[in-house]
């Protein structure tokens, strides 16, 4: 199909264009040019119209069908277009492809040397407890241990909060936490750098990922629902990625993940797992709680 050539044909052929009036003055680069008028046989015009309308009509039908089928099942059912499960497998593939491209872009944008903006104490905002389910019972805190697996030593390490606070330097930062839902909060965090923990307890040499989990997390009805996130070690080594122990100068409350939570401001809030109980370093990408539920796996912001 080469519409443009056809349309511009008479322009090239001076005999069929109307008397071309030469402009009174030389047009500047930005000035609107005179329209290209051409004389065309009515028959040919009808043929062009028919052909282009047909092509356009087919394109429109394809767009409506293709675009419409990308809409979620529940939306189509609500609109009364489909009934029952008619999920198109290619649709999931295409939407996941877009998600992966977006994750790759996020990973390309990430730099370990780029610090996120920090704020002053007067800019601190309130931070809501966005525990997906119920807030856990604080009875786990006295017995709390952080277990490390997948270490270069081949051993399993278990640390309590005193070990952590005594053997690592505490860093402070006032940064913004951005939720996938769209809200954000500025808070003053302190804790140890994840990078320092990685230096003190180096992971196996091939490890590229950390699986971070909280066994105390609860589901919507208060039932145990362990929470787990995947975190690439490149992000874990970012200087502003903390294992936070304090919020706004006070030890973390149960609502905010006592005694230790992950604070990774270069990721969406859902990666900032509360009440961490175990970190496992792996070579392959571990599972992620929200990625399993259709969200991005990388979540870099």
């Amino acid at each position, binding site marked *: 199909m080469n519409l443009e050539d056809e349309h511009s044909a008479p322009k090239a052929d001076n005999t069929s264009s109307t008397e071309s009036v030469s402009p009174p003055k030389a047009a500047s680069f930005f000035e609107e040019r005179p329209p290209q008028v051409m*004389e065309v046989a009515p028959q040919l*015009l009808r043929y062009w119209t028919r052909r282009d309308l047909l092509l356009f009509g087919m394109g429109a039908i394809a767009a409506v069908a293709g675009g419409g089928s990308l809409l979620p099942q529940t939306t189509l059912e609500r609109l009364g277009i489909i009934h029952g499960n008619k999920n198109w497998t290619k649709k999931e593939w295409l939407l996941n492809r877009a998600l992966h491209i977006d994750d790759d872009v996020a990973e390309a944008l990430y730099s370990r040397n780029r610090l996120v903006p920090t704020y002053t104490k007067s800019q601190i905002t309130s931070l809501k407890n966005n525990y997906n389910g119920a807030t856990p019972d604080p009875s786990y805190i006295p017995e709390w241990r952080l277990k490390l697996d997948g270490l270069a030593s081949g051993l399993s390490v278990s640390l309590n909060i005193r070990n952590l606070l005594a053997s690592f330097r505490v860093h402070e930062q006032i940064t913004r936490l951005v939720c996938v839902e769209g809200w954000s909060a500025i808070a003053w965090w302190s804790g140890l750098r994840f990078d320092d923990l990685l230096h003190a307890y180096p992971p196996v040499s091939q490890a590229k990922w950390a699986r971070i989990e909280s066994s105390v997390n609860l589901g919507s009805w208060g039932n145990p629902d362990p929470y787990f996130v995947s975190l690439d070690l490149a992000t874990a080594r970012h200087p502003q990625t903390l294992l936070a122990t304090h919020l706004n100068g006070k030890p973390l409350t149960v609502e905010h993940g006592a005694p230790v939570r992950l604070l990774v401001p*270069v990721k969406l809030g859902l990666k900032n797992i509360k009440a961490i109980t175990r970190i496992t370093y792996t070579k392959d990408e571990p599972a992620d709680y929200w990625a399993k539920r259709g969200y991005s796996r990388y979540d870099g912001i």
Partner: protein
Amino acid sequence: MPHSTQLDSGRIATCTPESEAGVLVVRRHHLLVRCTHWLSVPILLGLILSGLSIYWASPVYKHKPDPLTGNFDPLADVGIWICAHVPGLHQYNSPPDWVYNHLSLGPGMLAVALRLHWLCAYLFMLNGLVFVIGLAMGGGWRSLLPRRTDLREALKMFCYYAGLPLAKLTRRTWLHPRFNTKYNALQRLAYFSVPVAGILSVFTGWAIHKPMQLYWLTAIFGGYDKARIWHFWLMWFFILFVVPHVILVLADGWDTLRSMIVGWSTRAERSEDFWQ
């Protein structure tokens, strides 16, 4: 020019007998401009539908929670109002969700909405790029550039459109303001601001999508929360543009609508005034 050109002009010559007069046509829109123009319809629709579902998860605009329902979202209020006042909707089972059920993918669809939004957003950027290439190749961008007299002329056009329905009703003559460019000043203002709004939508989108890595971009729009407000109102700009755009194109007639499909218009007479 490829050889097919020669062939086509030959065909025009052969099928134009002396008796049948040719029709004067004027080139309006480049092929790439036409394709991207129509592609932007499903893409924008997808962006708005998924965008409002994303908005639902944490509305930008909130009021004090209603003591009875705990509702704080003005869009939910609109739904409640509609269900209370529109006949036949009194039985609607979730009035606060009415707006989201009808103008978005639906509430509680954040994960799906985000994936669709990214897909449409990348297509939107690609489509916008091809549109700009089409404008450059066809030279159409020159017709979109604002002129010094545009504000006054646009006001004249606006008064013309505003007074037209009454003039038609009272059968008074209502003269269309004269212009000798491809678009009148009001059109030019609207068509110029659409690509600008498109670019701003893309930038505000990135500003709220990557507020840490692109923090400088977020700062340009006044920070994360303000960038969300920009992004939200840019959506309304597109909606507010499309409504009169469609009405005026339909009112203007088949030739105008057809020109965005086939690329040419038979309204060559307008162009005869061009250099006067």
